[in-house]
């Protein structure tokens, strides 16, 4: 009996492990069991993440709800206010008069003009150069497409990003850096990237931005990557060198593969697309160096996904902390995995900032490795259609200049008796030999007269030749004929 109970329990346990996504944890655990790392001290990423997503599980931009005596509650406002308080408590000062940058945007989900907020805080230096560290705080908890709710509490997108932002700020608080650092929590990101758009619009001196670091979905996936551009860049190499030197859990990007290649069966397409689907993308388009920390599996067999074999977190109800803990196999494992991934990102940033070559590398590096023109649709279109238009122009010029110098061949008119040389008026047979035949003389005379009057004749296939006389009866045809140059 005991044996049966034991077997039953083993089966139940196995099924539970399988159903809870144990397979997808494997690679996450592999990350956790790495070599000795050199993490910065004094962070508490998992605690910050838990507090944030548990306190504000609904941070949907533009989502306002009537909440009893409190009246209307803007959940995204409460969330950004909490972030703002955290940064104020650390001693950071707002970049502007108010801690929150307010902006208005047209929400495509509600079709209304909504108010959004960015929290912007700074760490000042004597330099006019600055580094922007950002993460979006909103989620899709209340957004639905075709009646299907898109998300949970947004632990992955991007509770982990906000936790990393706050903990990075905590570590950098007492550091002396030769450049300003601006911490930005972007709002209204999931509904169209409006927070980063408004932030960039408010920047008068974008050329002073050395680098934009984006924490978006930077934990929970199998591996953490640092993406900068399709092209190889100096600043990306610099950050990877820092990560390697300190044995941090940052994985090399896979060999470049075109977005055309990967099938989307796993749901997320190719890594370049995923990595660019972040706040940093707008900065990159402005030619600003970016480092985007993103945790996924870019080399999974089934295509790009969060964990090997599964791409079921982003924009699903599975994107909540309880589910993540379950997938990881428990609270302690989840805490370990998430903390290591977040600490890897924080440590890479801090060590990079402390490196004496940081400013020089950032100034020398180009956002797209100097190949911005190749990524610009307008530029490439101008080149392609410029070549096309130029060639067409050349062909026209050559045609009109050469046709005067080129000998024309004779044009013959076919009749039922033979052919007439339309230039000389000579009546010829099929071998273009002259024919002296009285029977055809009248026919020839008729055709030639017509030709002289109208300037052209018709051929056998012409609709005009229904009467079978081979004569063009329609004088307007001359104007209509765009194909013949005679």
């Amino acid at each position, binding site marked *: 009996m005991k044996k049966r109970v034991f077997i039953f329990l083993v089966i139940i346990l196995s099924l539970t492990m399988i159903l809870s996504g144990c397979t997808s944890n494997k690679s996450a655990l592999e990350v956790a069991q790495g070599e000795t790392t050199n993490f910065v001290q004094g962070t508490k990423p998992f605690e910050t993440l838990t507090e944030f997503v548990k306190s504000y599980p609904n941070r949907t931009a533009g989502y306002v709800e009537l909440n009893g005596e409190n009246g209307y509650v803007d959940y995204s406002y409460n969330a950004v206010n909490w972030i703002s308080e955290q940064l104020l408590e650390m001693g950071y000062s707002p970049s502007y008069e108010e801690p929150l940058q307010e902006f208005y945007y047209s929400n495509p989900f509600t079709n209304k003009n909504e108010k959004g907020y960015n929290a912007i805080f700074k760490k000042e230096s004597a330099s006019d150069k600055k580094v922007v560290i950002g993460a979006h705080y909103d989620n899709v908890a209340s957004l639905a497409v075709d009646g299907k709710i898109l998300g949970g509490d947004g632990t992955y997108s991007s509770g982990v990003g906000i936790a990393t932002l706050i903990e990075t700020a905590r570590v950098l608080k007492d550091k002396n850096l030769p450049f300003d650092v601006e911490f930005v929590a972007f709002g209204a990101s999931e509904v169209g990237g409006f927070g980063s758009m408004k932030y960039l619009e408010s920047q008068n001196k974008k050329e002073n931005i050395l680098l934009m670091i984006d924490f978006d979905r930077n934990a929970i996936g199998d591996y953490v990557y640092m993406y900068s*551009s*399709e*092209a*190889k860049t100096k600043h990306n190499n610099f950050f990877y060198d820092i990560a390697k030197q300190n044995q941090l859990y940052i994985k090399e990007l896979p*060999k*470049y*593969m*075109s*977005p*055309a*290649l*990967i*099938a*989307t*069966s796993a749901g997320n*397409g*190719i890594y370049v697309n995923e990595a660019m689907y972040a706040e940093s993308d707008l900065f990159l388009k402005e030619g600003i160096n970016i480092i985007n920390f993103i945790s996924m599996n870019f080399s999974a067999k089934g295509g790009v996904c969060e964990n090997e074999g599964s791409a079921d977190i982003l924009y699903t109800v599975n994107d909540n902390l309880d589910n993540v803990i379950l997938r990881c196999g428990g609270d302690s494992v989840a805490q370990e995995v998430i903390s290591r991934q977040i600490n890897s990102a924080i440590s890479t940033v801090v060590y990079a900032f402390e490196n004496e070559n940081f400013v020089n590398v950032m100034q020398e590096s180009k956002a*797209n*490795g100097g*190949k911005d023109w*190749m*990524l*610009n*649709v307008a530029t*490439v*279109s101008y*080149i*392609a*259609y410029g*070549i*096309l238009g130029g*060639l*067409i122009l050349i*062909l*026209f010029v*050559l*045609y009109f200049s*050469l*046709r005067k*110098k*080129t*000998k*024309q*061949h*004779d*044009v*013959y008119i*076919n009749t039922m008796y033979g*052919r007439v040389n339309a230039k000389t008026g000579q009546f010829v047979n*099929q*071998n*273009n030999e002259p024919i002296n035949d009285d029977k055809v003389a009248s026919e020839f005379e008729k055709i030639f007269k017509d030709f002289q009057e109208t300037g052209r004749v018709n*051929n*056998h*296939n012409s609709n005009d030749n229904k009467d079978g006389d081979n004569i063009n009866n329609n004088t307007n045809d001359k104007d209509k004929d765009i*194909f*013949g*140059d*005679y």
Partner: protein
Amino acid sequence: MSVLNEKTNDKTRIILYVFRTVLLLSFFYKIWFMAEMQSNAFVNSFGNIMLTKIMVYIINAVTAWLMCWFATHLTYIMISRSQYCPINNNGDFILSKNDYHIIVYFAIIISNIIAGSLNFVAYTVPVSILLFVLLMPVLMAILSIVLIFTLIAIKCDKKDIKGLFVSMAMPCVIFLLLLR
């Protein structure tokens, strides 16, 4: 006029049918990179991924093939009715309609195969997507035109080359606009 120059035989007709079919297949090969990108962009537009992919391939390749076929017909009319085109003893354009079609199809098949093969490069070279999607069709149209002109010029006397160029100038514009 040479529009009526329909001297043809079974062998030519068979070759023409074969080339016409191969041309269509070559367009499938040529557009695969762009079609894959479009498939990824549309994903489930036709119900499922595979159907979307098939539809994207068919729409792109068949459209390109039809445009090519139309351009070939149109340009033959233009060239054969030109006063400058090379003519035979009968005063007709030296190429029959079928011969001309075979030459054009052959040239375009060659450039399509080259274009389709170059797409593999786009898979491994970063920052090259736009170049391959926007610039390559134009360059391949130019290559096709050069091939067509060369193949026809081979059949002409040297003294007729200038006339061939004049008669083909406007048809080349048509090719540039319609070959994709």
